[in-house]
């Protein structure tokens, strides 16, 4: 279980380190200006991570084929507006393969009933090559109390491999204006994500091939 905003993040906030930018970038460290109601979240920026080999010796498969990219959401700041918290993120996209890679990204927020409550956040496009890191602009939304997925989806199109869509999700609960990050287990247990939707007709497809 992750600490709440008022726990871990504020503890590190005085370091005031974060990155918010767009397009293809070389990773670095930026010192953000102080804004009222916005507390930056500390983060050490180390550049594109290398995919770690599986550590367990008994693996029958040391891992599947590599993804062309890695996508992650990075929290940058806690923003308090009218007493309600939200966390501002950006996404980073590390490119692993390809001499020419096309990217298109978009972030949204989906509630636990499958409804989009914010869309086309930080939408953008870019091009790069293996070894580059792209970063989106700020992803931020003021949310009512409830359960949400903050999600960024990235279409990755290497010149020498099939295109694919990769995503990074942060599960969130907003309760009495407090923003709390959740893991997948908490999300599924506490939110409506385990509830089904009513259909009026049978599935479009039959079960056979």
């Amino acid at each position, binding site marked *: 279980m992750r600490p709440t905003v008022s726990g871990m993040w504020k503890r590190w906030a005085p370091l005031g380190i974060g990155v918010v930018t767009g397009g293809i970038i070389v990773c670095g460290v930026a010192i953000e200006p102080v804004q009222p109601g916005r507390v930056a979240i500390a983060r050490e920026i180390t550049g594109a991570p290398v995919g770690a080999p599986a550590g367990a010796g008994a693996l029958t498969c040391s891992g599947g*084929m590599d993804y062309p990219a890695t996508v992650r959401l990075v929290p940058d700041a806690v923003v308090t507006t009218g007493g309600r918290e939200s966390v501002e993120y950006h996404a980073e996209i590390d490119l692993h393969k390809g001499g020419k890679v096309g990217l298109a990204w978009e972030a949204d927020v989906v509630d636990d009933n499958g409804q989009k409550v914010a869309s086309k956040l930080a939408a953008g496009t870019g091009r790069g090559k293996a070894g580059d890191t792209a970063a989106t602009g700020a992803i931020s939304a003021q949310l009512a109390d409830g359960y949400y997925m903050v999600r960024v989806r990235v279409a990755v199109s290497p010149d020498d491999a099939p295109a694919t*869509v*990769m995503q990074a999700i942060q599960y969130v609960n907003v309760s009495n204006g407090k923003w709390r990050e959740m893991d997948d287990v908490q999300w599924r247990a506490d939110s409506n994500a385990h509830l089904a939707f009513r259909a009026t007709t049978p599935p479009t497809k039959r079960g056979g091939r």
Partner: protein
Amino acid sequence: MLRLIRRVCIAATFSVALGYVTPAQAVTGYVRGNWAFWNQNGNYCPSANTCTGAYYTQSGFDTLWPVSNAAIWVVDSSDAIIGTGATDDDGNYTVSWSRSTFPSQIGVVIFPYQKDGRFYFANTDGQLINNWFGLVNTASSSSETSPQDVGYWHVGSSTAPDPFYNAYWAAEWQWRYTMNLVGILQTNFNNVQIRGFANTISGYQGTCNTSCASGPANQVQLDSNAGFAPQARVMHELGHIASYVTHPWALTGDYTWSPPGDPPGAASWCQDCPEWGVAAFEEAWATHYGSITLWADNAETPTTCLSSGPCYSGASPAFHTDLEASSYPFNTNNCGLSASNPEARWPLSAMRYFWDVFDNHNDADGDQYSASQSHYWQHLANLAWYPEGTGTNQIDEPWNSDYSAVTEKDGRGSVSYAANYAINVTDTTLLKTDNCSPP
């Protein structure tokens, strides 16, 4: 309504449900309905292609499919299990329930848990995934011929598809249409736990950024992006389990082939990267189960790739995703011979060899053989015939005689497959040669 799911944080064993006992002096009833999920699995054949022999086409993408052959619970308002059953191929179910007193309300819970216990999905903590629609009032009377109809329900939506049920669909198809046709897998492929979706799961397989499988542990771990890329993820990893349980071998796992004298190569693999024979074989073989699940033996452009979309660029297979490489007839050897990346060592070459063993498509080179037509289960069970030992073409060929070191990294490769298949079924030398003679 949340109460049930909090209680149904079931440890990854289903013995409680399967051990359900009808109470004596019971009130009984029947409930029927249908479970579906919103499918956004990739690896479909796109509409731009003719898709001859494709079982999964673009028309099936982003729409509702049945949750087939999955476990069902009927519960009462106190979360007690009062009935168990399963969906059929089309997601339909009729399940009886029984209770000592009449339940005022009942609910129906669906699990991405193969009804015969072949495999099941759990979260990162090992709790079984499940969904339900809440409680409904119980019909005053119901019977097997007139069950209470609770209607159609689906998990996930186009906006938020559920990765567990998407992966379950791929795994269930692979089991039903491929593995279930092989006797040794009917016997040995059981109770495989599949946890997802995270790159690191402490206490399980640890860090697997690109998913992984452990045959000895009977476990698969799916990474955070694995939910919608079936061929290269859940189908592939379950293929490793099938390979292992067909004939367990001493694990190797060296993916660092490089030309003699050069530093070791990359510790990961890709379809068109050079690998040691044992690694190329195992990755290709694990992929083969999914390939023949999604493509029929008459397919003209079968593909395999890592993608949540198609393996195509327009109407044609994307670069090095085609399994039917008829551009390499055996009498015109135009295989890539680069010293640093010889095509023979690509896992894709081994995949193409296995595809040609399976398919019923003559590549204009005298390829008249089709295991699909004559030796379906045999071509999938071939590993079982490998002799025990570390000698040539034996199951542990990569190892030295006292199992202290891996000394023949091209052992237990495609050559061994062909040799054992020749002894037990038929000679496929032509098909191996056609595909650059993978070691």
